[in-house]
């Protein structure tokens, strides 16, 4: 059988770059296969995807050597439009790619461009809408849909073309864990019904492996590092070397000293043979210590019986109450649209609560203006592009002090000090545009830290980051938390983040506070995880299968062990 995608000795260099982004790629994907492509940011995995859908070289030009054949044809002969009949791409940004004013129009978009008669469009739109379960939403506008629904509309929008290949560019990046799980299941269903070839680009390996994949291709530094089955891959250490996170249960077994063998099928925790490892895992559990709880500190931010609604009778938040102590790192979690952002908006004073109080150091904040609160509670938005308004780094960080009329000398001092803390001092005279995304993120954090707030709120601090950048940002936050005692609140749906970096998780579902406990307890509690669209951690299943009585304690110990290990590595590097 002829492969449907075939790279032979393929290299590609973007016009603006000196070095090729892809080098000597040899890769064949067979019709009907389901392949996962993983790799850190900048590894070339996105470029590889763009070669398949034609954005390279038709939208981003460059030099190609070697050959690529899609469905036996040369992409250059097919053109971008010809390729779009064979390869359907579902992009990461579920908002951005929703083009139509309603669901039906968005699904029909490709058909319209192809001059399909209207009756045929109605028929096809209905057909694919049914397949991805959005038929009841056909006349809805994009803002009425959840992230998962938007993504399903995007899938439908490319499936109307009867494409042979479906290409998913980081399908899980913007979804809460439970919705992500559903998306992966949906992809599997489509493949079964249509025998479509599926190519998924993703760095959240554990989540992407929720359903079987045939092969995993690891891309690193523009080359294919390995091309193997999931079971084989999980046994080696390639993932760690490439900076891709292994499934947590795999890491845990490795920590316990288990040598995983492919014949035990480590692809899914549910179906893995754990007998050979259970003993080791139990022993590891017994000899590992949980982290010591932090010393009790006074309350810094207290929320008392908080209610909020835009329209009377339709509350967004109800009876929310919690108490955050000085120096804590806390996560606020829950599915998209549960009211997490509203809560941070209330704390920052952008909205006024309908009822209840928010206290900072015991003082009611109600009389304070947004600006006054901003000096005590700093808010960092999801994307640095939403905050940066000055061309130079120094000016950007100085902005908050400048508008408060701080003297030039003091500004100079405080900005330089902050830049040093954030590791940006060497770049202080650079234009912001010369920085990478991660560095820009630091600039946006620095521009808030310079005002010396007592509490820092970050909205999805790691969204769209790969494991390496994720670790970099989170270690940085942990460092400033430990060194300066600043209290950090993170709004997130990243379970790894809450588990590894926060002491406490405040869980919100449908406007109610449903849990306020350690992340390990939250993620091992089925009821809470379900309600909040979280996913139980695979460590929980591992603990149960290894007959460990207290799974949440197992999770605690695992996290403590990981932290300690990372700390040692840092010292080794430093």
């Amino acid at each position, binding site marked *: 059988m002829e492969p449907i995608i075939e790279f032979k000795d393929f290299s590609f260099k973007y016009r603006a770059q000196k070095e090729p982004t892809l080098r000597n790629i040899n890769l064949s994907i067979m019709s009907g296969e389901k392949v996962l492509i993983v790799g850190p940011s900048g590894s070339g995995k996105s470029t590889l995807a763009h070669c398949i859908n034609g954005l390279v070289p038709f939208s981003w030009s460059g030099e190609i050597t070697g050959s690529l054949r899609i469905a036996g044809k040369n992409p250059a002969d097919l053109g971008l439009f010809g390729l779009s009949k064979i390869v359907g791409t579902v992009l990461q940004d579920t908002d951005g790619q929703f083009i139509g004013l309603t669901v039906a129009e968005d699904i029909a978009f490709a058909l*319209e461009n192809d001059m399909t008669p209207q009756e045929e469009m109605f028929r096809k739109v209905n057909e694919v809408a049914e397949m991805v379960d959005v038929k009841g939403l056909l006349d809805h506008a994009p803002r009425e849909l959840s992230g998962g629904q938007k993504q399903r509309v995007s899938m439908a929008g490319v499936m109307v073309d009867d494409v042979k290949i479906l290409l998913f560019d980081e399908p899980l990046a913007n979804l809460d864990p439970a919705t992500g799980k559903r998306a992966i299941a949906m992809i599997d269903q489509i493949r079964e019904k249509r025998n479509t070839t599926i190519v998924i680009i993703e760095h959240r390996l554990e989540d992407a492996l929720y359903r079987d994949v045939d092969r995993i291709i690891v891309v690193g530094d523009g080359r294919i590092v390995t091309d193997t089955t999931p079971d084989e891959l999980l046994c080696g250490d390639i993932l760690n070397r490439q900076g891709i996170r292994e499934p947590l249960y795999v890491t845990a077994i490795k920590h316990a000293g288990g040598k995983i063998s492919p014949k035990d099928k480590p692809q899914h925790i549910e179906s893995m043979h754990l007998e050979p490892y259970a003993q080791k895992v139990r022993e590891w559990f017994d000899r590992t210590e949980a982290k010591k709880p932090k010393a009790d500190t006074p309350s810094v931010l207290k929320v008392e019986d908080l209610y909020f609604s835009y329209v009377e009778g339709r509350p967004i938040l109800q009876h929310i109450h919690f108490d955050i102590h000085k120096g804590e790192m806390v996560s606020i979690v829950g599915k998209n649209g549960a009211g997490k952002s509203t809560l941070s908006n209330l704390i920052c004073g952008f909205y006024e609560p309908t009822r209840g109080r928010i206290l900072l150091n015991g003082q009611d904040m109600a009389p304070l203006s947004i600006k006054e609160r901003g000096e005590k509670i700093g808010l960092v938005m999801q994307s640095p592009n*939403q905050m940066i308004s000055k061309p130079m780094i120094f000016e950007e960080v100085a902005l908050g002090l400048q508008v408060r009329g701080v003297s030039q000398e003091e500004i100079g001092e405080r900005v330089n000090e902050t830049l040093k803390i954030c590791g940006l001092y060497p770049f202080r005279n650079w234009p912001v545009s010369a920085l990478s995304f991660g560095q820009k993120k630091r600039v946006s954090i620095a521009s808030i830290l310079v005002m010396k707030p007592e509490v820092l709120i970050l909205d999805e601090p790691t969204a769209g980051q790969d494991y390496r950048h994720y670790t970099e940002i989170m270690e940085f936050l942990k460092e400033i938390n430990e060194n300066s005692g600043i209290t950090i609140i993170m709004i997130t749906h990243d379970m790894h983040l809450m588990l590894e970096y926060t002491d406490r998780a405040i869980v919100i579902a449908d406007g109610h506070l449903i849990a306020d406990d350690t992340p390990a307890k939250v993620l091992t509690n089925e009821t809470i995880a379900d309600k909040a669209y979280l996913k139980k951690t695979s460590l929980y299943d591992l603990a149960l299968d290894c007959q460990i009585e207290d799974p949440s304690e197992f999770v605690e110990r695992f996290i403590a062990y990981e932290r300690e290990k990372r700390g040692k590595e840092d010292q080794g590097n430093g």
Partner: protein
Amino acid sequence: MAKILSYEEKDTWIHRLSGVTKLIFFLLWCLTSMLTYDTRVLVVMLIFSLVVFKISKTRWSQVGAVFKLVMVFLAFNVFAIYLFSPDQGTAIYGTRTVLFHIAGRYDVTLEQLFYELNVVIKYFTIIPAVFMFLVTTNPSEFAASMNKVGISYNVGYAISIALRYIPDVQSEFTKIKHAQEARGIEMSGKASFINRIKNTAAIIFPLIFSSMDRIDVVSNAMELRGYGKHKKRTWYMEKKLLRNDYLTIGFTMLFTAAALLITFADGSRFYNPFV
């Protein structure tokens, strides 16, 4: 927030008409109203406009704010006409019936009042037609109709895409504004005018940069799904012309022809009750 002048789904025969029909009606109606000063024609059009407006079941909250704005403009317009040419009526109708004197060259004449009344009626024949067109035409269908009457689909789609992303950009704007306010950038009335202008940069630049990110995604997404492949495209939202559409178009054309015939029959655009 109430959505002003935006499409609302309702079931009236006007809503059921195709966008093309409404566009043709709207264009011809405005043309007639602009050309004619014949009071008899204008009065008929006025009554007709109000009836159609009533049938379209448009609520006051959909159009009220804009209506008030138009009224201010109308008052200003009427006043300005009088200020700059108080004897326009006499110049048109040939007679001069002074009602009373104000000052200098400013007399109030019956002819001037009659002329300005015509101006006011013209406004009132067009306003309901504009409102009705905007609130009864689905924006996507509007894009389709523009394409139908010969305008490039790029223009129609640009409008439709703008409508699609306006709510997104609005919410992005609010988010950015809030975050910058928290950093201490004052956007309320407390800041001086100059400072406020300077401070808008703190919102505009991030807004532009984050919108640019979005444009990149959108244009890629459109290209990947074959936008611009052919010279023509079809429209999911297009409505077939039905019997009522043909009747409406026919009626509009006949009415326009008749109105212009009556208007220009005596060689002048004006109906003169004074001779």
